[in-house]
């Protein structure tokens, strides 16, 4: 009869769910929410998404605002429906079409003059106003940081060291 002996094996148990589309979409969606908020604050403060000053309104538009008792500072707000309509969406099943990621859009048709909110945003961009629809360097850094944070947190789940004893 052979002598009885023990064998210990280390196993590497990789949890691939941390790399799933679903997980990535959620991280991207959360990061997009942060980007939308950051850019909304910037616009409200009269800043472009890069931190520069927003282009001033035309003299005629300023006169109109003054007549209505409104501030003439550029904040790209008239009724608020366009700015408020910006929505982040994750994955391919909603407004977003990006599998494993997220995007944002100005939804609906609430702008004056029959335009959709997205069309109004585009028109304002054509006139030289920085209506948020792009990532500034700050935003790219923010998104990268979020994914890194996620990977760091997931590291513990990635590599589970387990021992099995045979006898």
């Amino acid at each position, binding site marked *: 009869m052979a002598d009885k002996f023990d064998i210990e094996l280390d196993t590497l148990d990789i949890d691939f769910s941390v790399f799933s589309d679903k997980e990535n979409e959620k991280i991207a*969606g959360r990061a997009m929410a942060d980007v939308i908020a*950051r850019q909304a*604050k910037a616009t*409200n403060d009269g800043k472009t998404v890069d931190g520069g000053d927003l282009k001033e309104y035309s003299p005629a538009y300023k006169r109109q605002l003054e007549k209505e*008792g409104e501030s003439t500072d550029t904040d790209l707000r008239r*009724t*608020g429906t366009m700015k408020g309509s910006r929505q982040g969406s994750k994955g391919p099943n909603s407004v977003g079409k990006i599998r494993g990621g997220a995007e944002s859009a100005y939804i*609906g048709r609430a702008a004056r003059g029959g335009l959709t909110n997205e069309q109004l945003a585009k028109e304002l961009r054509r006139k030289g106003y920085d209506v948020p629809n792009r990532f500034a360097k700050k935003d790219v850094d923010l998104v990268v940081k*979020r994914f890194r944070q996620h990977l760091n947190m997931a590291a513990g789940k990635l590599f589970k060291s387990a021992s099995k004893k045979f006898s």
Partner: protein
Amino acid sequence: MLKELSPRELEAYRKRQEQMLDDVTDNVKVALADVYRDFIARFKGTLSSASKSQTVELSEAMATMNDLTTYLQEAGLDDLINGYGAQFDRITQGSLEYFTAFDVAPDLTGLDEDVLNAVILRHENKILASVGRELIDPLEQALIASTVGNRPRDAIVAEIFEIAEGLTYRQTETLVDTTYRQFHRFVREEKAKDLDLEYYTYVGPLDDKTRDACEFLMKGGRGDGSFWTKEEFTADLHPDLVDNPVIAGGGYNCRHEAYPVTAEFARENGVGADG
């Protein structure tokens, strides 16, 4: 013939006259303060009456207040007017501008804050009550038509204006725009739940029109003052808040937005590690 007064007697006489004038002025001031209090009470009584249109009530109140101001001026009590003016300037300015949303263009330089708030609430309640009774279905249909379909906003305003009794075109525009904004906030809130976002940051203009509640939501929270946990961000935060601030903001026609964000973003903007 009048007796010639000595310098000492003249000085004593001057002092007595001054004292008399001071007494009279004080009494007049007290009397005018009573008039003012009475005016406020009558104004509040007028507001509680639903027999007349809001605009007429407001105009009458404005006229009374203007009369009072004239009376004070004629009595030579400009300092009293200035005192009222300084006290009520900020809220008056904000409120008067606010009234443009209701197609009312009052002109006045001093009103009690409570009274103006009462007027605002009455206007809001009137519009919201009519929304509740008659316009919810058409507004919901309009939202669907313009969000999912391609019905232009202006066509929807015209359509609602046709069926909204008692609302001016400007009021209808405000109502429709408010409905759009609240709908977009509702959508954002649903997405926030799906993403498990932990904080809100309150963003918008800070000027003479800004409501006290909105100013508090921008300054009284964590980090730079605009951050609140999702648990604490409710109508309980400020006595002027009536509805969920995520959807309603600070109230009807609010210009502010609550953006849901991650805990990481909140920390990066000054919120402490302990939340």
